[in-house]
Each structure stands twice: as structure tokens, then as C-alpha cells.
């Protein structure tokens, strides 16, 4: 079971499109769209829809709700308050698109409701990219890999990479040229802008550093399953 996600938007198309996008990176996560008004399909937020979506998204591990503008937040909060167990769901202040992607990947990785909410909320911050200057440290595994898949480290491959790292005890970073991204953050990886043909350097530290590197090598060599 994973934490469920509800996308509350004034627009049905926006909520559905975003649910589709996020689901591509998190196939096992229940992502429910609650957009627009149910009656005439117009713009607005529909309390009953949000309540129903929250119930659909909940597989027992709780739900994180994201929203687009003003009244969507209020509707989402009202819906959570009305649940039989309001502690099962939380409304998170996050940028809708980036937050939904980050939350979906975190949920897919098995994160709990608090961690999924934090992943969404921190998606609004500047990407975790650092300029590389430190020399290689002791106990750190490093490997250079060439991306051969069509889209490079775009959304889905980045999500696959982050998910696959969840099971390893290792801190992983990915470097492209001068920039280094946290290997556990989809948005940071995407921000590298690594494309087909680019050479990335994967660096891992921790008890399973070597295994993590081996896993990433396998993913890169199999083109992330594309």
C-alpha cells in the first residue's frame, strides 16, 4: 500500500492531466483528480468531488491533498475536516505540478504520509543543485555513465532512478558537468537537464554504495526500461 494523492484544481482538465503525468512516474500510487464542478463541468472546486476523491485515493496509508488556487485550498481543508478520521489526510501547500510529481514519486518509494507531504512542500524550493568542487572522498563510490536513452534524465527515467534507490542504504548524487543533484530528488535530477549522449557521474556513499551504483548502471545500460 502507498500514500494516496488528491489533486484539487478549479479545472477538470488540469487535475486529470496532472494525475496522468504523476501516475506515469508512480504506477502503484492512487492519484485522484478532483477538478472543476461536477454538475456543468465548469471551473470551480467541488466539495463533494474532493471528499469522494479523498476516499478513492486512500488505500489505508493516508492521503496528501494538493491544490491550485485559493478556494481549492479551503475546499480541500473542509473536506479533510469532514472525514471520519481527519488525521488520515493532510492538505499541503506546494506548487501543484512539481509538488504532485515529487509527492507521487515519494509515495511510490513507500514514504509515509508525512514524508510524502514534505516531498511535495519542498518541491517549491530551488532545486538541490550544488557546484562540484570537493575531491573524491574516502569510502565513496563513483562511476561515469553515458545516457543512451531517448529523453536523458527526464521525468520518467529520473523517477525510476529515485524509486530504485529507495531500497539502498546509500546517499547518491548525480553530476553533470559543473552541477550535482541529489539522486533522491526527481526534481533536482530533472533540473540537471541531462540528455541523450550526456556523460553523468554517479557518486554514492554509505553501506550499500556499491550496490546502488550497480543498480544505476543497470538502469542506464537498459535505457531505464524504455
Amino acid at each position: 500500500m502507498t500514500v494516496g494523492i488528491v489533486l484539487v484544481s478549479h479545472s477538470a482538465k488540469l487535475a486529470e492531466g496532472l494525475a496522468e503525468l504523476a501516475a506515469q512516474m508512480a504506477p502503484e500510487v492512487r492519484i485522484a483528480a478532483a477538478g472543476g464542478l461536477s454538475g456543468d463541468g465548469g471551473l470551480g472546486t467541488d466539495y463533494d468531488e474532493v471528499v469522494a476523491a479523498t476516499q478513492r485515493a486512500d488505500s489505508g496509508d493516508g492521503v496528501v491533498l494538493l491544490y491550485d488556487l485559493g478556494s481549492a485550498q479551503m475546499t480541500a481543508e473542509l473536506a479533510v475536516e469532514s472525514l471520519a478520521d481527519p488525521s488520515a489526510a493532510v492538505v499541503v501547500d506546494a506548487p501543484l505540478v512539481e509538488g504532485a510529481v515529487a509527492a507521487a514519486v515519494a509515495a511510490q518509494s513507500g514514504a509515509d504520509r508525512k514524508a510524502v507531504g514534505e516531498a511535495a512542500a519542498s518541491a517549491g524550493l530551488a532545486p538541490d543543485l550544488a557546484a562540484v568542487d570537493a575531491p573524491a572522498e574516502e569510502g565513496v563510490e563513483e562511476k561515469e555513465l553515458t545516457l543512451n536513452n531517448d529523453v536523458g534524465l527526464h521525468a520518467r527515467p529520473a523517477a525510476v532512478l529515485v524509486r530504485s534507490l529507495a531500497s539502498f542504504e546509500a546517499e547518491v548524487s548525480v553530476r553533470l558537468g559543473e552541477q550535482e543533484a541529489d539522486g533522491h530528488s526527481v526534481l533536482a535530477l530533472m533540473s540537471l537537464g541531462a540528455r541523450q549522449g550526456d556523460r553523468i557521474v554517479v557518486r554514492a556513499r554509505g553501506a550499500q554504495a556499491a550496490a546502488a551504483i550497480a543498480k544505476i548502471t543497470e538502469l542506464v545500460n537498459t535505457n531505464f526500461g524504455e
Partner: protein
Amino acid sequence: MGCSAEGFAAALRSAAEVIAEHRAELVDLDRAIGDADHGENLNRGFAAIVAALDAGVPQTPAAVAKLAATTLISKVGGAAGPLYGTAFLRASAKLGDAAEVDAGQLVEALRAALEGVQARGKAVGGDATMVDALIPALSAAEGAAGGSVAEVLTAAAGGADRGAESTVDLVPRKGRASYLGERAVGHLDPGARSTALLLRAFAEAAR
């Protein structure tokens, strides 16, 4: 004399008529600084309340308020739905199971409604929202708490009118209008206006 469930239902019917009459005005106010749907949304919500009351008036004033709350939350698409819904919901919680509401209870319900709206919308006085109508409405109502239900509501409506007028000079800090910043100065906030209209309708009905 207090206000019964039937009396409260009648007041809501009057409010629905007033909102219908002022639908275009609220749309125009909202068009200037928002998305021009406030009048439509509120009219849809209150029409649904009337339909629900036609199907049967609940037993107590609190139950009538709760019916209004759930209807507005479900039927109004914009921010007004959760805000007015919360206001009626909190008021309902204050009224308990009394068959008749007296002036003192009404003031308490109004205070709970204001607190609910502020908690839901995170707005304070001076943000150019319905809160700017509700704050002076509550203080005027408190001043009239020794009188009748009609006197409390009349005082509240007067306070709301003055409060709504004050939003003309304010820079909005909440909702769609906040994106306009200084450009929204000179415009009456549609939410504050609708709050004043509703309290005036309640006051007229209570006479």
C-alpha cells in the same frame, strides 16, 4: 422574541431573493477585481438552499444553519462556498439544540461565524474581504445584544454596510483580487458586499 427554525428558514428565503436581485451587481463587482463569478455562484447556492427548504424545514435553527452550510459548500464553486459554508457551520455549532435563538445566542453565533471565516480564509481585517464586513457587523451586534433579534441583526447589517464600504480604499491581500494589488484600490470587495446584503436581508426578515 426569539428566532425559530421557521423564522430562520424564512430569512434564508429572503436572502435568496436579495442575492438573486443583486446577482448582476455582484458579478460586476467581481469582474473588476476577480473572475466575475461571485454573483452566479452565490445565486446558485442560495437557490439550492431554497430548494432544500422546500423539501422540508429542519427542526431547529441550528439544523437550518447546518443545511445552509452543507448546501453552500456543495453548490458554490468559488471561495464563497467554503467561506460562507464554514460561517453557517460554526454558527450552527453554537446554536445547539435550542428551539428558539435569542439575541445573545445570535451574537455568539455571529462571532463563531466570523472566527470560522477567518480560520478558513486566513484573512484579517484590512485585507479587503468579507471579514471587513463581518468585524464591524459583530461589534455593532454586540452593542445591540440587549435588544431583540431584529435589533441585533439591524445593527449587524449597518456595521456590515460600513465595513463593506471601507474595502473600497483597501489593497486586497487575499483571493484573486490580491494579484491586482494597488490596481484593485477603488473597488468594493464583492464578498464584503454580499455579506452586507445577506445581513440586511436577515434583518428585514426579522422585523
